[in-house]
């Protein structure tokens, strides 16, 4: 059970959150101008590194805020919230 550092509520049990996948995957400014391959890249192709990973969490059962954290995918350690 991870202890997820919510920047608004402090550390809380993982079960209060929803995982939001990789952070900083921006919605394209103008999807219509993208090729199928470029759009598929946005849609389906996300990083899965062994090590530090910027990811999104949503505090569904708490403050209902989305936030980013950096977590190590091997040790599960969290960097201090930004």
């Amino acid at each position, binding site marked *: 059970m*991870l*202890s997820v550092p919510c920047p608004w509520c402090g550390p809380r049990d993982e079960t209060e959150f929803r995982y939001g996948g990789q952070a900083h995957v*921006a919605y394209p400014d103008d*999807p*219509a101008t993208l090729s199928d391959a470029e759009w598929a890249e946005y*849609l389906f192709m996300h990083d899965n590194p062994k090590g530090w990973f910027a990811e*999104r969490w*949503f505090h569904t059962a708490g403050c209902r805020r*989305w936030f980013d954290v950096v977590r190590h995918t091997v040790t599960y350690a969290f960097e201090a919230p930004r």
Partner: protein
Amino acid sequence: MSQPFRRVDGGRVDRGRTVTFQFDGTAYEAHPGDTLSSALLANGVRIVARGPYTGRPRGVYGIAAEEPNAFVQVDSGPGEPMVRATTLEVYDGLVARSLAGKGELRAEPDDSRYDKTWAHCDVLVVGAGPAGLAAAHAAAVTGARVILADERPSPGGDLLGGRAHLDGRPAMDWVADTHARLAALPEVRVLTRTTVTGFYDGNFLVAVQRRTEHLGLAAPAHVARQRLWHIRAGRVVLATGAHERPILFPDNDRPGIMLAAAAAGYAWRYGVLPGRRAVVAGAHDGALWAAVELVDAGVELAAVLDVRSLPEGQVHRALRDRGVVVSAGHGVVGTDADASGVLSAVWIARTDGEARRIPCDLLATSGGWNPAVHLYSQAGGRPVWSLDHAAFVPGDPVPSVWCVGAAAGTFDLADALAEGGEAGWQAAAATGEEPLPPATDSVSGTGAPAACWLTGPVDERADSVFVDLQRDATLRDVRRAVGAGMVSSEHVKRFTTAGTAADQGRTTGVTTVGILAGLLGLPVGAVGTTTYRPPYTPISFGLLAGRDRGRLLDPERRTPMHERHEAAGAVFEDVGQWKRPWYYPRPGEDLHRAVERECRAARESVAMMDVSTLGKIELRGPDVGEFLDRVYTNRFSTLRVGQCRYGVMCLADGMLFDDGVTARIAPDHYHLTTTTGNAAKVLDWLEEWLQTEWPSLRVSATSVTDQWAAVALVGPGSREVLSRLAPALDVSAAAFPFLTVRDATVAGIPARVFRISFTGELSYEINVPAWYGLALWDAVAAAGVTPYGTETMHVLRAEKGFIVAGQDTDGTVTPHDAGLGWAVSTAKHFIGQRSLTRTDTARADRKRLVGLLPADPLVVLAEGAQLVVDADAPTPVPMLGHVTSSYHSAALGRSFALALVAGGLTHRGETFYAVDSGRAHPVVVTDPVFYDAEGARRDG
């Protein structure tokens, strides 16, 4: 004589009191403080189990959680299968019986109470032996919040019943003092009878506290039998001790063969003689010290064997003082049994020497100690093989976790106390002067332990050398696994089942690894242990469920009108957590007839439905229109105040996600509805985009599902009923047309009335504040309106070809596939739009929504039935699609269905076969709108 193997004194049992228990149908006596295993040994009961496959008799082997044999079925109290006799505290009236393998679950429910609790602490110390007590004490005196958990009834660990001295006093005095000091500190919690079973991410540990089992039949009903602790610890000190491991030899499974320290423990902790005449066989000093304990307890030592040949040390002198000479370089080569299968003699020999037979009733064997690295391993640590210890010990440290004492391979008492205190001090992040550990008179070691796994003619007798007593797995099985090419301990474990039983191979798991390494010609460390996974000891499902069972398993959501539905005899259906009326049978009606009548009422006169469960989200802010344009496939910014529009939502992949009607209440205020089951997901979805991609949009979203109760008033008579209930409201078609919303007073209640239709009929959905829901329902019902349930709703909506997101769609269906291309705007951008022109989503042969008419109008197709062109085609039969909704229609007088079919309506008029349970029903592909295709009834 009662308890013939009870020593005249000694042990921590209450000799002043006697309890009676039954085992395998015979009544015995014991003392409070006994475990079932000590009580059975006291009564001379040697056979406590049988091998599940061999049927061979087995006896008590260990003294704690490592026990492989003595798992019993408890029939008293709530009853329990496979309870470890070595940790089951005897109580008056205990009834247990031996097992051969599996136990049995009782058919009757267990009405005991099981609870869960949560706790936070700065330092969690697991194990209250000397190292754990020292750690807890050092941490606690700093003021840290400390939890000390130990699985035994009282602290002390290996000091329990032992004869060690600390600070010049019996060690148990120090234990009692330390316990008392800890208990007096306000921030310290000492949990006894509490097993920490799992170490999870983020220093989250789970523990099982057995609160009333030891009270037996006198357990008070109001106290939870067990409690599941969820502990979030800042730092963790693991003082979990070690498990003794045996040496294996032919016929190593007979009752009377026992771990050496366990045998000594029974003598001193429980005051029970595990046998009268013993052979002790070991590979380390601890086995020899166990021999000293046994002889001091009154056991005759027939022989003491050490596979090592060492110069004389302190322990040899201690034994010689007692008239015992150690047979160096000797091991056990076989055993004999009496007619009942119980040990009667041991064959011993020097390597390659002549075997000698020694009659005895106890063989105490010890190949060394395996540090209990289970929790360390679960925490992410990797045990490494230590030549010095001849054992796997904790390897690289895990952040914020300390392993101390025997769990770290530190077996010397003085060292363990110092190590525990140091760890507790560090874990509490303390500064200053650390408290000193108590002084001990440590014994000096004689020699390093030997990594000895097997003795005797094991190759010739491989099928009688048991590597797992509970699974009846033998050395022959391990050899076969290696012969089959296996080199991994994980594979060998699964192939042989050694280590997979309820005891998880605690006594012989490492031994099996050692044997495997020998067969492979590899160092033990290169083979490595199998993975230690939680739980450390079994947890009952009853405890995991706690109070979350029966009606408390999941919250039940009821609408404000629920009691009226119950009174009307409604049959309910679960929709997510909601209880919704499924249909309202009248006397003598079944589902079919009730639905037929309810459908007629809706199509021919007037009917009503509780639609309060519909997801409702209120959106406010100047940019709501723009926001909705982006999340819906169609446009909402142009909606005028007082208008409603049906909308479709896609995920970014272009797949239909949810649909519903949204109304504009004011220029900056919209009321959005969702599918009943999708309400929370849609709100999450809206918030995600508002917060993460478009924070500049001034929109706030609030769930108002529970704030509004709603009644759908449906049918050609609905206008007339509404006009009576809301005399001030102009209900004429011109003043209140389809897809508009009006504020009104309905039956004296302030209401928001939507003219929308999920049935194709003239219909209104009257929304009122939830607390008026019951009054509204009563007022509408008083007008003589027929209530209908979800089944009728489904028939009516399917007749109109209206989809239900999640039933007729499955995350692979675009709006175009669902026949909703008309609701997809091409003049604006929306989420998922780009996906709709991907090569795959633009394919002509995608599965699309169609209607189906079975050739036999009485056949209602099974939802999920696959559609094929040729029912007799050889397998694999190409499948064109599947039935998504299927009902009997009162209006059509026949069955009908909706389906997703590759190519969709290009197959109009063709005959397919719907295959269900081996039967192929011919069906004709039709348009999915079966009723009033022009919409004249709805718009009337």
